[in-house]
């Protein structure tokens, strides 16, 4: 299911909920009022988007930083194109990796093609997570970097 086949009402619901559900007794009723439909329709459509994988999950989105996970590391790995699927599945299945994506390399300066985000409360713990990814990948990784974030300059929900 691609974005192209979402109906106008689906898109309106996405737009109305992308920055969060309202903290009121009947949040789906509030969304329904905003987009001009019934609350039953809002819930049914969100259920369908969830089943189709357009919505991955519905729930609380914690802010790792505010909760003490001050070490946010973007780990990037130079993996050969023919190994990317194997490496991606290995790393993506780790429970401490919050996001794992294949992105294009830009040679000569940026050879890294596999991105995995890690979060830790201390530098030593973050380093240990990186080391365990390196060990898991073994020769599948030809080199890696960890880019720790020093500041969040902006973080908002999806906006369309």
């Amino acid at each position, binding site marked *: *299911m*691609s*974005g192209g086949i*979402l109906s106008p009402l689906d898109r309106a619901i*996405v737009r109305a*909920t*992308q920055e*969060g*559900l309202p*903290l009121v*007794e*009947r*949040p*789906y*009723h509030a969304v329904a009022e905003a987009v001009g439909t019934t*609350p039953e329709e809002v*819930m049914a459509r969100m*259920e369908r988007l969830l089943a189709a994988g357009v*919505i*991955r*999950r*519905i*729930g*609380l*989105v*914690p*802010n790792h*930083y*505010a*909760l003490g996970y001050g070490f*946010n590391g*973007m780990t990037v790995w130079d993996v050969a194109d023919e190994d990317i699927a194997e490496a*991606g*599945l290995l*790393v*993506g299945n780790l*429970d401490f*990796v*919050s*996001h*794992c*994506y294949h*992105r*294009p390399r830009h040679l000569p300066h*940026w050879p890294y093609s*596999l*991105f995995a985000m890690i979060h830790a409360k201390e530098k030593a713990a973050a380093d240990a997570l990186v080391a365990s990814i390196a060990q898991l990948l073994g020769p599948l990784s030809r080199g890696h970097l960890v*880019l*720790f*974030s*020093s500041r*969040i*300059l*902006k*973080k*908002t*929900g*999806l*906006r*369309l």
Partner: protein
Amino acid sequence: MDLVDQRLLNDFQRDFPLTARPYAELGEKLGINEDEVIARLDRLSRGGSVSRVGAVFRPHAVGASTLAALAVPPEELERVAALVNAYPEVNHNYQREHRLNLWFVVTASSAQAVRAVLDDISGRTGLDVLDLPLLEPFHIDLGFDLKWS
């Protein structure tokens, strides 16, 4: 933050009820009433521990996006960061410890609209923008175990 806050944050990152009164259902599981659930979520949101309560969308499920990076001279960083942040299409922007020191996500209705933002940023800053669109996701984001200690 007490034990109830911790359970709220850890146990309800997925499977949030699609029912008329979802906060009442959370309350039943936590042994508190609906008003208290809403009050706690409001407090945690204002305090910054909760970014939002709602749906997490698959990348590119709606619209298009990319991860972009800039190598900004340190003395220019504040000015360029403010310039990048001012775009409504930029929803994340992080300073990172690398020559490529500004990393941001651009989300828009189409790939062309994303490209236009990158070109605009490049034109206004005189910097090359590294464009790293997602090719394939390897992780189904089901939440993150906060491991309270």
